[in-house]
């Protein structure tokens, strides 16, 4: 039962990274693109961004129902970065909708656009920082310690910042690659190809930075990757896939489907690799008594009901979700 819940939680996390990530990244790509691209991007994300966003809500619900101690500890200690994530989510969603649904197109849209772009960048950075803090092991639940030790130092350090920047780059990469298939204009398509390539290189660089800064903060991330065969293999495969995707990006007629599947697999590999070095730990604590899936799981009756709700929910949601994407992502390409 626990296994299934962990798999669904992982699935939500993966889908949020891919779909929510593509949405966030779209805001970043838009910052570096022009007026024409702004329209393509708005059109691409408008029908789906709310549904994509629900994967995060689902992950949070699974966390607080199935692993309440993890949820309450995270929200206690990482109050500040989580609050900033929330502000980013509010500003981004509102600004996007305000701009998209306003009936008059005037100067006020400049402000919405700025807000949308800034929050599209900031939110993934703080999300990445939260993940970094869960891994680093500087979290303490002893609130009698100093404010800095409890509420700041676990997330405000170069490792977590690198994690944040890496997340933003990864989201940009996912988004740029998805966007290649969203336009029929050749010049615009080429621009996304260029963005995608640059973002891929940036992902590699910042990924490397994550390993280096982990070492600098006294966290042996590379050592852990070397110890886990699965993680090592998935990381290598993800890197090799870069060359394949690069190849498809260079083709004159980009095979959109291959590109998207390629990026999907790549991100899946990165997350699986990360999952394997982390499992079963959810939050590494300073005192070594880490919070894991096992020692924080809710009682059996709760997990059972949670699983029933999730499975019933997924049976209802997945066909709807596929239908939504079919209407707007598959059919629209044929128009």
């Amino acid at each position, binding site marked *: 039962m626990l296994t299934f819940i962990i798999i669904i939680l992982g699935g939500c996390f993966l889908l949020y990274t891919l779909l929510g990530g593509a949405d966030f990244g779209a805001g970043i790509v838009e910052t570096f693109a022009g007026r024409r691209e702004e329209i393509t991007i708005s059109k691409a994300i408008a*029908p789906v961004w709310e549904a994509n966003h629900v994967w995060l809500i*689902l992950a949070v619900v699974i966390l607080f129902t199935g692993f309440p101690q993890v949820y309450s500890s995270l929200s206690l200690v990482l109050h500040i970065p989580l609050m900033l994530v929330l502000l980013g989510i509010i500003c981004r969603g*509102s600004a996007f909708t305000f701009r998209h649904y306003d009936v008059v197109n005037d100067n006020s849209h400049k402000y919405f656009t700025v807000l949308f772009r800034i929050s599209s960048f900031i939110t993934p950075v703080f999300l990445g920082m939260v993940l970094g803090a869960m891994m680093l092991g500087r979290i303490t639940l002893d609130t009698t310690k100093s404010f800095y030790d409890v509420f700041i130092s676990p997330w405000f350090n170069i490792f977590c910042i690198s994690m944040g920047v890496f997340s933003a780059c990864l989201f940009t990469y996912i988004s740029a690659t998805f966007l290649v298939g969203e336009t029929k204009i050749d010049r615009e398509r080429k621009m996304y190809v260029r963005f995608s390539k640059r973002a891929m290189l940036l992902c590699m660089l910042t990924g490397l930075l994550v390993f280096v800064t982990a070492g600098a903060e006294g966290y042996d991330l590379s050592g852990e990757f070397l110890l886990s065969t699965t993680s090592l293999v998935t990381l290598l495969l993800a890197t090799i896939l870069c060359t394949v995707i690069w190849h498809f990006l260079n083709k004159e007629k980009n095979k959109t489907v291959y590109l998207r599947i390629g990026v999907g697999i790549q991100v899946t590999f990165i997350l699986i690799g990360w999952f394997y070095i982390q499992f079963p730990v959810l939050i590494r604590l300073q005192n070594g008594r880490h919070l894991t899936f096992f020692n924080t799981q809710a009682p059996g009756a*709760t997990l059972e009901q949670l699983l029933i709700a999730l499975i019933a929910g997924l049976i*209802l*949601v997945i066909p709807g979700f596929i239908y939504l994407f079919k209407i707007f992502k598959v059919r629209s390409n044929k128009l």
Partner: protein
Amino acid sequence: MDDLIAARLQMAISLGFHIVFACIGMTMPILMAFSEWRWLRTGKQVFLDITKAWSKGVAIFFAVGAVSGTVLSFELGLLWPQFMRHAGAIIGMPFSWEGTAFFIEAIALGIFLYGWNRLNKWVHWLSGIIVGISGVLSGIFVVSANAWMNSPTGFDWVNGKAVNIDPVKAMFNDAWLSQSLHMTLAAFVSTSFAVAGVHAYLLLKKGSIAFHSQAVKTALIFGSIAALLQPLSGDFSAKDVAKRQPAKLAALEGLYKTSKPAELVIGGIPNDARERVDYAIRIPGGLSYLAKGDFNAEVTGLDKFPKEDRPPVIITHIAFQLMVGIGFLLAFTSVLYLAFSIKWRYILMKKWWLCLIAFTTPLGFIAVEAGWTVTETGRQPWIIYGIMRTKDAVSPMPGLHYSFYVITTVYLLLSFIIVWLMRRQINTITQYYPSANNNA
């Protein structure tokens, strides 16, 4: 500012903000689907135009509702980590169902808003119905989680820990039905009267235009039925509260001393020092009858509870009077509406009637906010009634007032922008929808 107060205010602002969008998200899809159905049946352009004009506004409300809901799912932990640590496993179930319902709502809304030219007309209409049903369901699930805080069941509390957890029993606690019924009806009353009010105002300004009079009609059909049912649901709730949470009932009625029979106190200002309500109208035996169904029954007053277990009387009583007052005013308006539309249709276009409807625009939402205040402050000092105190659940992080200031500023700003955007939408109706220029 005290951290506990800051956390409570932040939660109040966040919920008070979100509840408006939640109500609109529950009601508007049904109104839109009804209008679209009339278009499908009659083929009249005006009904299609109404549906489309509404859907533009709804898209904004829905998106802000989605993000402010996400904020709440985090804030439960950010502000009340001790509460979520224990309650998560018990009331997570309705939240996971809510997650599912909201997911379906978001998917169906995407299809509804963007699928006009891509889908069969009836499939499109069906997607609107699905948005409405799943919106109502997600509201019911969230309210049952709140009902559990008023009526905690489905676990045993042993040495400060919950054991023998039964999530199904927790979800279907004693308060879930009365609370979710009251909330769902409230959503329909508030949104429908607000919509009718805006269009009535436009009728006053622009003369008799079919677009607006049909919009008023659609909204009031739903609004008046819900407003007439609401007092019954309120009575059901009050009797339930009398049984389960006598301290809350005593606070909201301003009953300081246990009485037999107990008089019904209408209006007035509670005076905590003298333990009585000043300047109120009193009906002998009224409260006994409303709470217990018997004019001579004994009703427990606040004196039966130690001082530290009493909810704040002033806020609770005044909020309750406000809610009930508006509720009756809207129910009375609904009786008039139904009577006029059956027998005296010409009155529906009279100036005084349109003024009355325009006046009701904000009332439903004021009642919703007041009612939410009643149920939340009336539960104090408990976060889980009789089990955990609010002050023991708050986050120990210092400086919580900063996030309160930030959230309040952001929400105020968003509210202003939304009002401004809605005005722009209303001002351009005639430009986008030709039928909005035609006289009735």
